[in-house]
């Protein structure tokens, strides 16, 4: 590993100033669960490592039932899944952040890091997509906000410019009757990379699916939303047959490759299995969320 400079800015201005100055040779450090391993293995280099954990906006987790959830880019997974109200409102997200790494990793790993690594197999990505996440980016020139679905360009590639960093991830408050789930397939139960990941979200009103989102991981150069799967669901009552139609649409949208973690045929098959199961779980959760909730004393 080569020697590098380390800076830990205390404000967003300071951070964007460093990035504007250093440009492509700078790397932002959140929990470091990707970056440190990559640098040690020589897969990524940096002249300046910018530790973003001391920037207040990037370390903030804000939730209210009207405006939704704002997650600072450096907030570790364990802070998300241990937050009771967040866990109740964003079940798909919680599925994902609970299975990224072991407990020690969850205390470090952040969603900002997961989206910037932009692995097609990143576990939080399909979950964030079905929760309709947006990202706020900042540079010395100002800020821009875009849907997460527009953030990814290819494996390891995003629209983030060298002088920019992700400030926060924003998830709208889910409507009544909302349910979501994230499922992945791994040969081992933990400590593994998704062969396929599927996020699903539905809104149930009067027994019908009125909104739906399905997102896939590890079957395309980026995580993808599958509008055709959503179309197969909207306006229908949930049923095994309807789930199967959506699953078939998801399979058609997948463009899997063969690598050491799985074959293209296996991945396309698993997209169908997991889409069906994720939808079933999302609908179960949507039904539970419609039940009268116990009121806090």
């Amino acid at each position, binding site marked *: 590993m080569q020697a590098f400079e380390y800076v830990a800015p205390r404000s967003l201005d300071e951070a964007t100033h460093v990035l504007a100055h250093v440009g492509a040779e700078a790397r932002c450090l959140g929990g470091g669960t990707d970056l440190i391993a990559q640098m040690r293995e020589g897969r990524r280099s940096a002249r300046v490592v910018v530790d973003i954990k001391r920037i207040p906006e990037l370390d903030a987790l804000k939730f209210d039932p009207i405006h939704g959830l704002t997650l600072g880019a450096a907030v570790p997974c364990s802070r998300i899944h241990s937050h009771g109200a967040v866990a109740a409102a964003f079940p798909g997200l919680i599925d994902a952040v609970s299975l990224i790494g072991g407990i020690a990793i969850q205390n470090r790993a952040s969603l900002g890091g997961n989206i910037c690594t932009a692995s097609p197999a990143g576990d939080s990505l399909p979950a964030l997509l079905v929760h309709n996440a947006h990202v706020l980016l900042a540079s010395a020139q100002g800020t821009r906000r875009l849907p997460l679905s527009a953030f990814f360009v290819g494996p390891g590639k995003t629209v983030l410019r060298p002088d920019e960093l992700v400030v926060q991830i924003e998830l709208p408050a889910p409507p009544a009757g909302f349910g979501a789930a994230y499922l992945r*397939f791994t*040969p*081992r139960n933990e400590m593994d990379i998704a062969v396929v990941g599927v996020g699903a979200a539905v809104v149930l009103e009067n027994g019908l699916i009125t909104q739906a989102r399905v997102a896939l991981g590890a079957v395309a150069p980026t995580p993808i939303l599958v509008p055709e799967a959503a179309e197969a669901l909207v306006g229908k009552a949930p049923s095994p047959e309807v789930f199967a139609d959506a699953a078939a649409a998801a399979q058609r949208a997948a463009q899997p490759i063969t690598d*050491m973690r799985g074959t293209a045929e*296996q991945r396309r098959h698993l997209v169908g299995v997991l889409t069906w199961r994720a939808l079933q779980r999302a609908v179960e959760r949507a039904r539970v969320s419609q039940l009268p909730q116990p009121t806090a004393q």
Partner: protein
Amino acid sequence: MTVLEQERIQTQSTSKTFRVIGRRVPRPDGVDKVTGRAQYGADVKLSGMLYGKVLRSPHAHARIVSIDTREAEALPGVKAVITGKDFKPAEDRVERSGEGVVNYSYLSQNVMAQDKVLYHGHAVAAVAATNPHIAEEALARIKVEYEVLPPVLDVLEAMREDAPILLPNLRTRELGEPVSDRPTNIASHEQYARGDVERGFAEADVIVEREFRTSTVHQGYIEPQNATALWNADGFITVWTSTQAAWDERRELSEILHVPISNIRVIPMEIGGGFGGKLNVYLEPLAALLSLKAGHRPVKMWMQRDEVLKATGPTSASVIRVKVGARRDGVITAAQAWLAYEAGAFPGSPVGAGMGVIFAPYRLENLLIDGYDVVVNKPAAKPYRAPGGTNAAFASETVVDELAEKLGMDPIAFRRINAAKEGDRRADGPVYGRIGYIETLDAIANHPHYRSPLPAPSAPWCRVGRGVASGFWFNWDGKSSASAIVNPDGTVSYLEGSTDIGGTRASLAMQLAETLGIDYTDVRPMVGDTQTVGYNDATGGSRTTYGSGIAAYHLGKAIIRAMKERAARLWDVPAEDVDVDGDTYCYGERCITFKALCAKLEETGGPLSVSVSVDTHGAIPALATHVVDVEVDIETGKVSILRYTAAQDVGRAIHPDYVEGQIHGGVAQGIGWALNEEYVYDADGHLLNASLLDYRMPTALDLPMIETVLVEVPNPNHPFGVKGVGEVPIVPPAAAIANAIYRAIGVRMTTLPMKPSAILKALGTIP
């Protein structure tokens, strides 16, 4: 957490009561290990120490055209660079080493490539520098020109006459003699034969014949290989390292470096796992040569995880064909097997052991077993816990299960009809002593696990099944030495030379305490090195608690003889008239305890120390029977282990916790081998999954609580009845799981690992 009832079944002759043996006493190294104070190789720090790194081949098979190290040598902080040219050729001679044999010429070429690289990750140069980062930077400045050659990565491909040849001088040997002058990748062909298999098959009512394949797998020890070496100005070499075999490594260093063994001291540090993978040198000779070249400064080296996976271990992939016939009454009439094992880059696969394991649980009149040792462009295979046994039993025990099914018999009842017992002859020649195979079958047949119904599937897309399989392992005895100092306070300082890889400091100290009739806590065990204690064979082959246990027993007897003389001197009576009962020494009415006698050492002749060396014999093989319940998700192909019970003849459990721990460990590794572990290569021979993320060993979340039944059929050749226990637990799991999967989904799995995609293919779900 669930605490499982661990069962012990003792035969009548084990009812003898012991003072120490059979108790679950605290381990002597426990506090140091849980507080992080135990000294591993990574903790070695010497003044003036340099750091060494290895440059490894990016190709699976290539000729080295040239190596230019000048830019690396010019880098400030670099103190030495070595390549194959720094090694004088070692003798092309084969000797027993660890659990197998070693050819020093091949070993030398394995630690540093000479004119050819034979696998992805083969060492081609090494650097020592003032810090590891400079050493790494220096590696990037070494220019190696390769002429890339086509690799051969599969045992059957390698056996073809037109296959690329790895070692131009290799000639096939049969029964130790060369049989052809043609260059080949087939290092040897061996055969075991008895009776007439053709007649046997003619007598059979049912015959099952299948071909099996198993993948390359790694031992998966958590501590990477490491070595620190000082080649001193006086010509003496000291090596601190993680090893199972300090004396074998001393011999190997002597042969590779051309230095007499008396000039080499190997100090085994605490070891973070080995499983057979730490019986031979890798970094040790490199560190020593770098130390010499750097002006006698100590050099420390340790491997990164990818280096461990690319260049150490693994054990053989294999192709095995098995044909077994049986009569309608359940008697096996003939058994035939053909085994081809990948040796990796140099001859030495455990195919011979596989040939011995494959039908070992059964009494056979007609058998024919052929085994081939074949080189391929993969790392040189090293022993892995019951080397070759898991592959072999996966094949034979699947066929045995299918025969039982075809005959409509319970798989345990079928095995019981054919079970080998004392006096039966093994395929590899020896006649069985008092083995306890039938007892393990009965233990499983009577176990609540086997007698209970299968649980219901957890989802509509899941199926459950139960499988059984048995396993055999030879067990080794070997040579051991030990020393003791009897202290005036009544304690005994006990120096033994077997690396403690599975709790043997405790199990050996217990045997010494039992012999002396004193408390376990009054024996203070310590592991010595090649300079401080007599010769010890490797910690391997399930020999330590047996062979070094016999050394502990003889050491205790020698102490007792000396203490009788001290008592005799105290009372001025003849030593032969002093009687010993437990820790009490008596002459007529006069008695003194061991502890009180220790206090009188000064006045009865001064300090007392004793050493013994023994060449032990009489190890008896271990046999085991396992039962497993699995659940298969037929939509994803994933197999979950629901319940696992292992019954094993352990002779006598000296320390039951450690015996159970050995069984848990072996079963856990067997489950990994069965379900997900494999080396994944591309067509050019690059190892694609050289990380613990993608080399999928099971984690705690993939394993059930493993139930054990310790069946104690004592070994009459050992003072306390010990049989080796450490290796046989890895032999049955793959077959037991395959048999359970068959019962769940109706498909016979014949390839390891039985990973999700393989299950889906077997079900016809995916192409």
